[in-house]
């Protein structure tokens, strides 16, 4: 065992980057679920975002354009879900699962010409002297912009839900859509916008994997991250900061266990391999002891006539 082989600074920097795809997708899904919609298509929107972002970044040679395209791609796919569940009033669970399957297939088709292509690299944000600070510099101040944008989204979603009128209306729609409708709020329109927001963030999360974390295009490369993001929203009791905590915890322990394995720590590998799931669940379950419940109308179909 040689723990000195693990560089804690690199480790923490790596965990922030590993957590970002889950964080983005989970933050988006949180908004969707707070609006009362259960979209199980996160995995599908992520993978479509991954290929849209990758393709556009390669074609334009601009990673930033790639992320914009990823958000657009994810949102466009989620619009399909919105059409099915908000207009055609289809079952949300079935539509979400279908969206994932469709997204996986569509991305494989779109990605045919991009296997083995190297994407343009997104540079780190230049924070000048901040990045020079010992220890803190490399950990906090030398990352790509999307990572910071992810954290800003968490803060923004939290502030919006808690302090603004828009957030209040969104929550009202999610808690009791009939009451919100009676008050004159456009339930379907608000939900559609929330779904698109969720799709855009999921798409960006996917593009973070294909453009920054791996970076390459491979079919099915999200490999279940979307499902983890979905679970995280529930375990985080639909609260933005807990999503951040959960994502960093999960990403962090996942990184740590790989490093511990490499360093040859005498903990059986089986325990190391399951530790990210177990510890994240335990911590978030303990935190959710305050009995915060799911949005009242989560997953229920709304029609103005009812």
């Amino acid at each position, binding site marked *: 065992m040689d723990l000195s082989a693990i560089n804690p600074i690199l480790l923490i920097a790596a965990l922030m980057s*590993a957590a970002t795809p889950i964080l983005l997708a989970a933050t988006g899904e949180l908004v969707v679920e707070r609006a009362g919609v259960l979209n199980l298509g996160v995995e599908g929107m992520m993978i479509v975002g991954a290929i849209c972002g990758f393709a556009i970044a390669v074609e334009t040679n601009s990673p930033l354009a790639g992320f914009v395209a990823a958000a657009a791609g994810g949102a466009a796919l989620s619009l399909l879900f919105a059409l099915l569940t908000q207009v055609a009033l289809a079952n949300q669970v079935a539509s979400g699962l279908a969206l994932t399957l469709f997204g996986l297939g569509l991305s*494989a088709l779109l990605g045919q010409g991009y296997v083995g292509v190297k994407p343009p690299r997104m540079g780190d944000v230049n924070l000048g002297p901040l990045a020079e600070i010992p220890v803190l510099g490399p950990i906090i101040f030398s990352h790509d912009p999307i990572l910071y944008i992810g954290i800003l989204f968490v803060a923004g979603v939290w502030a919006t839900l808690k302090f603004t009128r828009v957030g209040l209306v969104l929550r009202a729609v999610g808690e009791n859509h009939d009451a919100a409708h009676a008050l004159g709020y456009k339930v379907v329109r608000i939900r559609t916008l929330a779904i698109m927001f969720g799709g855009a963030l999921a798409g960006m999360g996917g593009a973070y*994997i294909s453009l920054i974390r*791996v970076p390459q295009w*491979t079919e*099915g490369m999200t490999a279940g991250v979307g499902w983890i993001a979905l679970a995280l929203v529930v375990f985080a009791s639909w609260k933005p900061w807990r999503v951040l905590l959960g994502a960093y915890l999960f990403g962090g322990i996942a990184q740590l266990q*790989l490093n511990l394995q*490499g*360093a040859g720590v005498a903990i059986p*590998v089986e325990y190391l391999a399951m530790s990210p799931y177990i510890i994240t669940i335990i911590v978030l379950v303990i935190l959710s002891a305050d009995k915060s419940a799911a949005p009242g109308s989560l997953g229920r179909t709304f029609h103005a006539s009812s």
Partner: protein
Amino acid sequence: MKLTTFLTSAAVALGLATGVAADGHEKTKVGFVYVGPIGDGGWTYEHNKGRLMVEEQLGDAVETVYVENVAEGPDSERVMTQMALDGADLIFTTSFGYMDATINIAKKFPDVKFEHATGYKRADNVSTYSARFYEGRAIQGHIAGKMTKSNIVGYIASYPIPEVIRGINAAYIHAAKVNPDVEFKIIWAYTWFDPAKEADAARALIEQGADVVLQHTDSTAPQAAAQEAGDVVTFGQASDMAQYAPFPRVSSIIDEWGPYYVARTKAVMDGTWESTDTWDGIGAGMVGIGEISDAVPADVKEEALAMKAAIADGSYHPFTGPIKKQDGSDWLAEGEVADDATLAGMNFYVEGLTGEIPQ
């Protein structure tokens, strides 16, 4: 352009897929169960190339079907059952974790032939087949031992099964032979295919000083991570992964399933199919060694090619004594060669490797 080619090929595929062969005989239907997506660029990609060779060489007499991304375990039984019910005559199940599922389903469909890759359970209608990838690992180990400057070689392992353990041992023995100071750092990813995790594992190894990374997972993600790091050597796994040549990918192990798939399909067609156990290596052409790039010094390349030739003609076996087990007990005496039964069930590290195999 892309779209039109796609539409044309789709139309052609539809045309081919309909109906019965011209002479009135029903086509022989061959099913393939894949653990990852065809586009993984590695393991599943090569199995699918084998499938395409069956279609190409046997033409109208066969029809092939496949299902991608089939999880190992119970879900695979559902997929196999569906294939058998749809009239498949021969089903290839192409991952170790399908072993029990294949045996279970084969019992229910005695008239359907099954072929399970890399497993060890057989039945009257279940054959097993695998390739001696460890022969390729030995060559990789030799190059790795010569190429590493930090003397740390990273190894991304998938699951603790004999196949993977054999690969680690073969690579380590030959790396240590040319570089006694070499140390292997092994990370068990517990997945065959998860590009993000594979890339993370590669990065963790690189951060811990590895300047050569071997992988036994299916995607090209570790190659991308190594390319990003700049000065890290990798090897293509299961497929050539030539898009990362000449550096970081300096060579590769290529699985050549096509000829075997064609031969077995023919055997089903003329009724000569029997349950067998096939385990072929470089000599028989089931394991290919991808071109060793110029990033490898000429003398090392020559030694590697000499070893390849010796393994191919049978004059050298990668597991030739003296070799001790990790605990220091004797395994192979001087000049003794490992028998296939021990290799097939290998569950121990050789002397010099650190850490424990997860049970």
